[in-house]
């Protein structure tokens, strides 16, 4: 309360002789996602120069890093909303592995119809997310610890269950089991195949030159993964900025006690966000198993860090109450482009981590600077 600004009630801030003016241009630019935007521009610029002729920007290359970015974006959206609501989730990666394994166990080992396997898995995962959320809000423990526990518990089951049931840690045959199912193509299919075929025929994009797909375009269509990612980004952004619930998310993360006193159902908001994060992990897993046809015990390792990194690069505040879904999506894009771009540019792959660490550091420093300007924090 004492961090009072000079101006007294009754005087506009802008009239204050003790505060220097901020130019309108600078004001217009200063948004949570500014760091992400700058980063995106820089990253694309660099790779245009260093990997422009490596196929990174032909149809196939674009589809490649788009898919990877979409993967990151899918989980980043969940992690972003959760982080804005003041919590975070270290069990995202384990949840991805677990969800995929559950679909495989229900759909292949137990032989349920695929749609039932998928739906039950979604319900199960969302419920587990709800449980960790419930533990966090009831005990007041830091979510770091609670979700760390779930990281181990879920990964443990993901390794244990298939070993017990099938005596191996990978379960295949999901594509066959999903044959003719109505729900499976929602995750594993591709859309706009007609358009791409036409583009191939018209010579806009390259076509295969030999083999049994000769004449078909190199990019068949847009994978559902990308569609889901776009949908989730849109949904998350819409909820966050346009709805009452979005205001509650900000409030819950900004100061839970104050929000509660003002009538925001903070616990409900936090638990729902944990569930949403688990849901996005399940979507990720469903897309993955449907595309690749198998579930493995090692799927999703370290994805929680990747999600958190994308969100933080995108300008969200680790301690909650501040951030943007668009920013997180840009963070995911940067992450995806850098990761695949380094391959295209032929950089020694073990150096990827070094780059990642350095980018992360610079991004947060930039974002902190931007945030301080916006919020007047000191």
């Amino acid at each position, binding site marked *: 309360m004492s961090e009072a600004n000079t101006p007294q009630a009754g005087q506009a801030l802008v009239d204050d002789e003790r505060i220097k003016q901020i130019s309108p241009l600078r004001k217009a630019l200063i948004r949570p996602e500014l760091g992400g935007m700058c980063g995106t521009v820089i990253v694309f610029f660099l790779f245009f120069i260093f990997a422009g002729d490596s196929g990174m920007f032909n149809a196939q290359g674009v589809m490649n890093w788009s898919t990877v970015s979409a993967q990151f974006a899918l989980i980043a959206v969940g992690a972003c909303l959760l982080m804005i609501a003041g919590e975070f989730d270290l069990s995202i990666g384990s949840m991805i592995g677990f969800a995929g394994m559950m679909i495989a166990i229900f759909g292949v080992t137990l032989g349920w119809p695929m749609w039932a396997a998928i739906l039950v898995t979604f319900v199960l995962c969302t419920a587990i997310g709800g449980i960790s959320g419930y533990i966090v809000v009831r005990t007041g423990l830091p979510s770091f610890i609670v979700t760390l526990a779930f990281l181990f518990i879920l990964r443990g089951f993901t*390794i244990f269950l298939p070993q017990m049931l099938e005596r191996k840690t990978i379960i295949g045959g999901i594509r066959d089991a999903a044959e003719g199912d109505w729900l499976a193509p929602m995750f594993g299919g591709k859309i706009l195949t007609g358009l791409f075929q036409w583009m191939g025929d018209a010579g806009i994009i390259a076509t295969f030159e030999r083999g049994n797909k000769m004449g078909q375009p190199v990019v068949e269509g847009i994978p559902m993964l990308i569609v889901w990612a776009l949908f989730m980004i849109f949904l998350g952004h819409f909820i966050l900025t346009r709805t009452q619930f979005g205001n509650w998310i900000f409030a819950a993360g900004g100061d839970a006690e104050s929000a509660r006193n003002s009538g925001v159902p903070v616990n409900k908001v936090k638990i729902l966000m944990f569930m949403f994060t688990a849901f996005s992990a399940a979507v990720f897993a469903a897309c993955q198993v449907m595309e690749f046809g198998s579930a493995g015990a090692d799927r999703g390792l370290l994805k929680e860090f990747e999600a958190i990194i994308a969100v933080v690069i995108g300008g969200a505040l680790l301690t909650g109450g501040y951030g943007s879904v668009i920013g997180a999506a840009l963070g995911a894009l940067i992450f995806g482009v850098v990761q695949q771009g380094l391959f295209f540019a032929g950089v020694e792959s073990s150096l990827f981590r070094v780059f990642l660490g350095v980018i992360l550091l610079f991004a947060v420093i930039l974002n902190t600077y931007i945030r301080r300007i916006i919020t007047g924090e000191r």
Partner: protein
Amino acid sequence: EGEKYILVSHAPDSDSWWNTIKNGIALAGDQMGVEVEYRNPPTGDLADMARIIEQAAASGPNGIITTLADFDVLSGPIRSAVDQGINVIIMNSGTPEQVREVGALMFVGQPEYDAGLAAGLRAKGDGVESFVCVNHVISNTVVGERCRGFADGLGVDLGGQMIDSGQDPAEIKNRVMAYLNANPDTDAVLTLGPTSADPTILALEEMGLAGDIYFGTFDLGDEIVKGIKSGTIQWGIDQQPFLQAYLPVVVLTNYDRFGVLPGNNINSGPGFVTKDALGKVEEFAGKYR
């Protein structure tokens, strides 16, 4: 001249075995005058590997050399690379049928399960009835196949005989000791690579079981070679990774340049390395062996 090839592995960054592969392609690249890149999913996630194959195809190389660690996951991207007109050779893991199915030119290597099976049969011949398999990458779906193959070769049920040892050497060592203490009638130890073999050697030495218990391992390394030499380890299964890397580059280059191609798959292994044949192995273990 100057053809470009890409080798995509399924191993995480830190897996030491793949170094030999890197050295193999480097040498082959030099000798043939071609450019070979090595790529792998940093965490060993096979889904990421599929993306890398797609990426490799997009960058338009003359050929791709890759493993077929999980047919379900990788067949799609590999097939579309083949369809795009890129020559593909499968190395290390996969079966001849699968290789044919994805449209690859050939296979160089030795499938994990079969290697395990061969080892199991050999151990059975040596009178082994029970064993413990020290799996340091329990979540990796490829390597565990070796344990299953070994159990099947012995004709016993794998059951609880595969332990999840973690990757920390002290933990591996102590877990092996704990297992052997709790199950003193174990006949044999099987380790899946240098990461688990090195601490296991120490564990056996500490328990005074070195040379006493039947000990086989996959893949070679400095300590493993020493172990074989001292009699602690009965045999090491050498898949000769160098060949798995070197030959595909040579074959692809010659195919691209002159259109010549061997008529069949090449088995780089199984090579059982025992005490008798250690000379060169000792010199190059971890680098070219």
